[in-house]
């Protein structure tokens, strides 16, 4: 199966095996260095630790930062973008706004985008990182900046996707450039084959639990091995989305066609991770790294299940949940909320019958977007609620209520939790 469905971006070069992918992409996007000097002619490679200036192929802004960026533009007297066709505003965190302050901010963001004349992906189109793949911003060799930490999803498609804050994104929008420090590269060689109930998130979060962030912090992490190469686009995107939870600067995931030839780190910077030892896990409150084997936490009461986010909202995720719900119903007193990652995913899930299965089983399917992931739209968990979510983070208060406990797991575990009103045991999975 071909993971990268679109040709390499015009500004990028096809990636080759043998040298770190992050170095190749930075080198093909170099601009003048930040100290004001100009590049030496033929200067064709970069060194770890070097500070460089690069020209991104695309810059996208999510709605939580758009109002702040509008304010920064006004404060600094900026009035344009380097290329309106290569700057996109995505309205995903606040789709159905139920707060007057937020409504006012969204109105400011709408007006700002319209004034700049940039590409707008309006409320209901989907999560920036999901549509970035669908619209071809993420392609092998491209360099993409997003005003959201999960821009690292790009690595599933061979794109250097970097999440940044509002000032960084403002500077990039104005100048068409940004500064970077060239990171070290580490390869994670995934060996063996896990049980079929083990999903990409189980692999990555188990690794985080066992090794901590230290081996990955500030680094480019390249995932290699047969299991990685066989991942579908949806699975690879799920794995890549969690790169930031490792502390990585960026991630790349090897694919079957060699478009993303990940695994380039020298011998001293290779980690081997055995997949045979991984089982389905749940991250318990309040850190993603707090993973426990499903068997240890089975039976924990669950009041609210959320299926969505840039980690698990794609067609494959909805299919898994729908298959798990066949012949079952959401338990009385439990709410099960499903938020497709994009309008394309939603449409495909309707056509495939997944939406009908989920609705008939008692789930609530919402418009595409970030959904309940970050407490900017409903439904919010009640005080004392135990939530089981397929998102990427369970920091205290993440869903808008610090008095709720958030557990993280895969779509199948989430679906079964909605049926049982409790975390399922491994033998209760379909």
């Amino acid at each position: 199966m071909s993971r990268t469905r679109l040709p390499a971006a015009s500004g990028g070069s096809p990636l080759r095996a043998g040298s770190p992918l992050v170095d190749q992409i930075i080198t093909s996007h170099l601009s003048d260095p930040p100290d004001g000097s100009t590049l030496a002619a033929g200067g064709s490679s970069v060194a770890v630790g070097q500070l460089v200036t690069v020209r991104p192929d695309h810059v996208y802004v999510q709605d939580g930062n758009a109002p702040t960026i509008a304010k920064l533009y006004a404060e600094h007297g900026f009035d344009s973008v380097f290329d309106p066709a290569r700057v996109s505003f995505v309205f995903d965190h606040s789709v159905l706004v139920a707060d007057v302050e937020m409504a006012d901010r969204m109105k400011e963001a709408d007006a700002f985008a319209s004034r700049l004349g940039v590409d707008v992906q309006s409320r209901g189109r989907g999560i920036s990182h999901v549509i970035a793949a669908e619209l071809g911003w993420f392609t092998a060799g491209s360099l993409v900046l997003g005003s959201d930490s999960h821009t690292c999803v790009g690595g599933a498609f061979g794109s250097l996707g970097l999440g940044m804050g509002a000032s960084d994104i403002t500077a990039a929008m104005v100048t068409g450039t940004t500064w970077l420090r060239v990171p070290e590269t580490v390869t994670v060689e995934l060996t063996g084959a896990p049980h079929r109930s083990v999903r990409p998130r189980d692999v990555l979060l188990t690794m985080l639990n066992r090794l901590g962030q230290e081996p990955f912090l500030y680094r480019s992490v390249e995932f290699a091995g047969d299991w990685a190469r066989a991942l579908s686009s949806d699975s690879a995107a799920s794995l890549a989305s969690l790169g930031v939870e490792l502390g990585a600067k960026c991630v790349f995931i090897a694919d079957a066609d060699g478009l993303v030839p990940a695994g380039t780190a020298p011998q001293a910077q290779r980690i081997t991770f055995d997949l045979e030892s991984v089982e389905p896990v749940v991250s318990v409150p309040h850190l993603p790294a707090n993973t426990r084997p499903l068997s240890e936490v089975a039976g924990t009461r669950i009041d609210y299940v959320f299926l969505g986010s840039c980690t698990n909202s794609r067609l494959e995720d909805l299919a898994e949940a729908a298959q798990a719900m066949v012949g079952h119903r959401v338990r009385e007193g439990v709410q099960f909320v499903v938020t497709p990652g994009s309008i394309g995913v939603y449409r495909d899930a309707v056509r495939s019958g997944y939406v009908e299965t989920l609705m008939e089983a008692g789930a609530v399917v919402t418009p595409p977007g970030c959904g309940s992931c970050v407490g900017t739209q409903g439904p919010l968990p009640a005080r004392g609620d135990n939530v089981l979510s397929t998102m990427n983070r369970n920091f205290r208060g993440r869903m808008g209520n610090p008095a709720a406990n958030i557990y993280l797991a895969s779509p199948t575990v989430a679906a079964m939790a909605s049926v049982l009103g409790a975390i399922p045991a491994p033998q209760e999975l379909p």
Partner: protein
Amino acid sequence: MTAPQVFRVRRIGGTISTDDIIPARYKHMYTDPAQLAPHLFEAYQPGFVDMLEPGDALVGDEIFGIGSSREQAVTTLLASGLRLVLAPRFGRILFRNCWNLGLPAIEVDTSALPDGARIEVDLRQGEVRCAGAVAVRFGVPPAFLLDMVDRGGLLRVVESSLAREK
């Protein structure tokens, strides 16, 4: 500014996410840092914000600023009077945001810096001094970052380079 300065240490423990620093919903509600400041560490350590004085240094003991890219975490720290962050490790996006907004973020072993201590920090020598002696040393940050802070942050630098082009 990057000249040697004296700070009071305010310690905060644990691995801290930007959600802990400022919950997401507030950044969707407010763009004015003064409106964000009362909510600093609201769920993580209630009452912490009331113990801060202008010019304090925030001192962590694990990884500081993992998670979301929200630079409102940094504007909230600044609006609460903090002028320096010291921690053994940082989340990379928060680290960038700190320097871009003029808040020096220094990777350093903080075990010898007790809460409430007065420390003198010399960014260009890579030294933290306490009671007249060097308490701990750190790698001097790149001149590019120090100069950016002295020039008022990333967007002031962009402003002046645009002015030069005109």
